[in-house]
């Protein structure tokens, strides 16, 4: 047995998560009423009240310095605490444990807290996303209050966050959570127009459909929803709904090919939300409901997600409409065959384009690109998302530098370029031009600054020649 120095690394993890509204328990002895949700639930009541009180105090205190922007995060040795007030008076708090290194020193176990590892922007974004995801499926806090008072709100929060918090993986949060972008599927004009035509025709014949979104290979092609709503729906689809269906498909179960029905073309279409089998008399024709345009029209919609091969379409229908089995069958028989054909068209066209542009080869550069204007995001650093985690192909140390550069960019409005040499000798370049950001990791340890600069110019000239991106 080797007696090497044994080190154990523990990544960041969620310590607690709670939501409160100070107005709900303003009298003494009623403090508990403020708490709308608390995770973990099994800690003692007084402890909960104490923690909420502390948060209130911090917020109140920092408000004296900046009345409109009170505290956003609190750094302590062991933890990092994040504050978010999505609706007036409603506070969401997320407490994340700092990463820890456990070392053996003189036969004793020593814990070293890594206080500076976590990036405020990343976890603030994660917290904001928690709210947006909640809102997507439940509407705003205030709306719940109007409808059913605190009881209803608490009930909804409990139901939602109980499951949702389990899907948060603090150790895998990074720059992409800040961007929370949308990956767009590259497509030629003609195929794109065909998709447009398909969507318009479906919306015409199924006039219940209010909005449609079209995705291929987990990448967005068309959104009838507004950008912000699509952003969170996209997140839900790609990190939660779609991954659930990948595994059964890979395992060969649940063969999606459909038997030929009389008067019906054979197709590969099926519902990802709602009924699994249309002909099952027991089947429930219920779809998840989502809330969009909450700032203005406040619409509640049924979310129908329908898939054929790699193409998925979201149909959104006013929630006041009762969706009948007949409607679902009509949708299936109308959309299924067309979508099957379209999906194979897209696949074919995509392969042709890839062959022409030669982009099938692995990209030489590891980069992350993000455009604030259309939320377009592209990463060659992240591997394909799996249901639980998003894998990156670079060291966490480098990811942190990317996050730091991003924080720098946020501070100024001007276009900027930052070049960093990491401890591990990697070069990292961050560029900001107008509303676009590009981060590149170069594995050319012996290059000098000028050579790195030239490399970046080359990359921009090849990968981003069709946009106005200053060098």
């Amino acid at each position, binding site marked *: 047995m080797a007696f090497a120095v044994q080190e154990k690394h523990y990544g960041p993890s969620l310590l607690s998560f709670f939501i409160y509204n100070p107005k709900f328990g303003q009298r003494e002895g009623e403090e508990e009423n403020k708490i709308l949700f608390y995770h973990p639930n099994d800690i003692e009541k007084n402890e909960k009240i104490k923690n909420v009180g502390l948060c209130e105090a911090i917020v109140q205190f920092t408000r004296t310095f900046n009345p409109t922007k009170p505290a956003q995060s609190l750094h302590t040795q062991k933890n990092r605490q994040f504050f978010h007030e999505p609706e007036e008076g409603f506070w969401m708090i997320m407490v994340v444990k700092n990463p820890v290194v456990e070392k053996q020193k003189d036969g004793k176990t020593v814990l070293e807290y890594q206080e500076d590892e976590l990036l405020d922007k990343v976890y603030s974004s994660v917290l904001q996303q928690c709210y947006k995801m909640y809102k997507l499926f439940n509407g705003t806090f205030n709306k719940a209050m109007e409808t059913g008072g605190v009881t209803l709100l608490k009930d909804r929060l409990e139901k939602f966050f109980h499951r949702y918090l389990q899907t948060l993986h603090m150790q895998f949060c990074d720059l992409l959570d800040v961007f929370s972008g949308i990956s767009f599927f590259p497509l030629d004009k003609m195929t794109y*127009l065909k998709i447009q035509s398909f969507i318009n*025709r479906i919306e015409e014949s199924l006039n219940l459909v209010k909005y449609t979104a079209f995705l291929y290979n987990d990448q967005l092609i068309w959104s009838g929803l507004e950008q912000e709503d699509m952003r969170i729906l996209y997140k839900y689809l790609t990190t939660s709904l779609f991954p659930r269906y990948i595994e059964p498909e890979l395992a060969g179960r649940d063969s999606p090919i459909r038997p030929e029905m009389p008067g019906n073309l054979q197709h590969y279409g099926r519902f990802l939300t709602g009924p699994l089998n249309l002909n099952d008399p027991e089947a429930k024709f219920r779809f998840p409901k989502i809330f969009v345009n909450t700032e203005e029209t406040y619409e509640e919609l049924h979310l129908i997600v329908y898939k054929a091969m790699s193409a998925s379409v979201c149909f959104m229908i006013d929630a006041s409409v009762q969706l009948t089995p007949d409607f679902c069958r009509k949708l299936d028989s109308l959309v299924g065959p067309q979508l099957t054909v379209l999906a194979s068209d897209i696949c074919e066209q995509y392969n042709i384009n890839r062959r022409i542009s030669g982009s099938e080869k692995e990209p030489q550069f590891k980069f992350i690109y993000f455009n604030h204007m259309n939320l377009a995001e592209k990463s060659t650093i992240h591997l394909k998302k799996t249901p639980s985690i998003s894998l990156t192909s670079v060291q966490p140390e480098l990811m942190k530098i990317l996050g730091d550069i991003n924080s720098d960019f946020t501070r100024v409005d001007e276009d900027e370029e930052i070049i960093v040499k990491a401890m591990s000798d990697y070069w990292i370049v961050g560029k900001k031009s107008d509303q676009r950001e590009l981060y590149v990791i170069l594995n050319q340890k012996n290059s000098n600054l000028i050579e790195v600069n030239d490399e970046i110019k080359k990359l921009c000239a090849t990968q981003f020649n*069709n946009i106005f991106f200053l060098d």
Partner: protein
Amino acid sequence: MEKEEYYLELNDRPVLFEKATNVNSVFFDEANKQVFAVRSGGATGVVVKGPEDRIPISFRMEDKGEVKCIKFSLGNKILAVQRTAKSVDFINLIQDYSQLEYSQECKTKNAKILGFCWTSATEIVFITDQGIEFYQVLAEKRTLKFLKSQSINVNWYMYCPESSVILLSTANLCNVLQPFHFRSGTLSKMAKFEIELPVSSIKPAKISERDIAMATIYGQLYVLFLRHHAKASSSPGAEVVLYHLPREGSCKKTHILKLNRTGKFALNVVDNLVVVHHQDTETSVIFDIRLRGESDGTVVLHQPVLPARSIHPYNIPLTGPAAVAGQLPIPCKLYSSSWIVFQPDIIISASEGYLWYLRIKLQPIVHMLTDKGRLMDFLLQRKDCKAVILSVCSQMLSEKDRASLPVIATVFDKLNCEYKKYLEAEHSYTVAVETSQGRSNALVKRPVRGQAVIDQSDMYTHVLSVFTDLKEAPHKFIIAVLMEYIRSLNQFQIPVQHYLYELVIKTLVQHNLFYMLHQFLQYHVLSDSKPLACLLLSLESVYPPAHQLSLDMLKRLSTANDEIVEVLLSKHQVLAALRFVRSIGGHDSISARKFLDAAKQASDDMLFYTVFRFFEQRNQRLRGNPNFTPGEHCEEHVTFFRQQFGEQAMLKISSA
């Protein structure tokens, strides 16, 4: 509505002539489309009326017996009159030429002249029961020169002047047809063909010339045979069989038009449509051989395009003293037994003294053909179709008769298919002209732009812009229609004009659908152009991302670098502008003053300093001296720089 359902009409300016009586014989010449009214063998006058002639030609000739056939040569210079079965007489109607008649007997012994046809201004063909004789008329010598002849037993003949083809019926049952083609002094024999007779136990009837017609349909010569009883006993109705007669090669049976009834029929060809009149029901049907029919591989079976309808009622206008106010015009008896039809589109009522051209009316058909795709196929082949097609397009987008998107898409595709064909023809013409450089220009003919070519500007002006302005449709539908049209153009690889994109953008902006617009631009559905980029720039105040979209577009155009610089300077992004100029290698030639002006306007000292220094360094590099030349007009900025940063901040001439 009912009265609007007549889709055939007689033209309202008929040729009037003196009706046929026992003293007045009427003849019609298919070649010149002239009606001859010959009174008393010509002694009391011959009146000739053609379609274009305002003033009839009238003359007298000696009565030398009953006139059997009378025709002018092409150009009305020589008159040929047949009075006997042996010879044809000629009269010159040329100034300074003798008007004395001269005559030509047929060469073949014991032959009987059945008739004659002029094939040009001076060439004439005699058709006898034993063959044909081809002559050239030498008017000044008042004699004929024999050119060629062919021996063949002839039952009857038929002449198609458009294609200069004479068809001879031969064999006992008249069912073997021999066509000849005439062209500038030559006679060529075309492939002989046989018309299949019904296989029946009864002795088959001879084929009458009344059941045969010749006409040019879609540029091809066809022989139309009216078969009174279909071969297959299951369909008792009569049918018209079309034989395609190519200039070279053999004749083929290609189309069968199902009439689904029996009785007396007559054929016309109008605007490439075969019109079949049925006397018993006093209605007509039309067939379009280009429309899809049932095919067995070689022969295509067609049903009538539309239900049978009568020709539009025709009133005989009253003239002379009878035309007293208040008296109703007399309706003309249509489908009268005294009607005679001639190819392609002529109907003559000899008893009433009228010659009409048959015309097709497109507007009523719009309501009769409910299948829009088929309607478009039909309309696109018609001569005067443009206004009707555009009205159909407008109508299918209107609130009342709104068509579904797939139907609209089908219509757009059909229009653009035709449009593309024309563009391609135009393109290959241009290429041919360029490559031949004037040589053999006769070979390349500029393509004719028919009415069926509905281009983007037609659609924009008459249909799409009107439709979007009306705003009676929901915006979703408007956008869907515009995108469908753009999709269709793209499908046929027709470059889309920017005014269509502008229409899309206008509609999207009106409804605040900026995110949609953004997505369209992101996928380059709205193609890059300077006007479009400028339009986007103007949207920046309502939709800030339009700025980025516009710059991207200008960048891709790669011919708009000046515009990019202007845009950046207008936003006081002086450094960005400089960096851009440097990246395209234009920084040695740009005006320093322009950039310094912009930097000063930004009222940012650091920025001004940087820009000033940049140009000092440029001066140093280009001229070895950091100072500005008087021509650069930067004195004002030099003074400003001195004031702000002091003399010592100025770059010194490097003491090299």
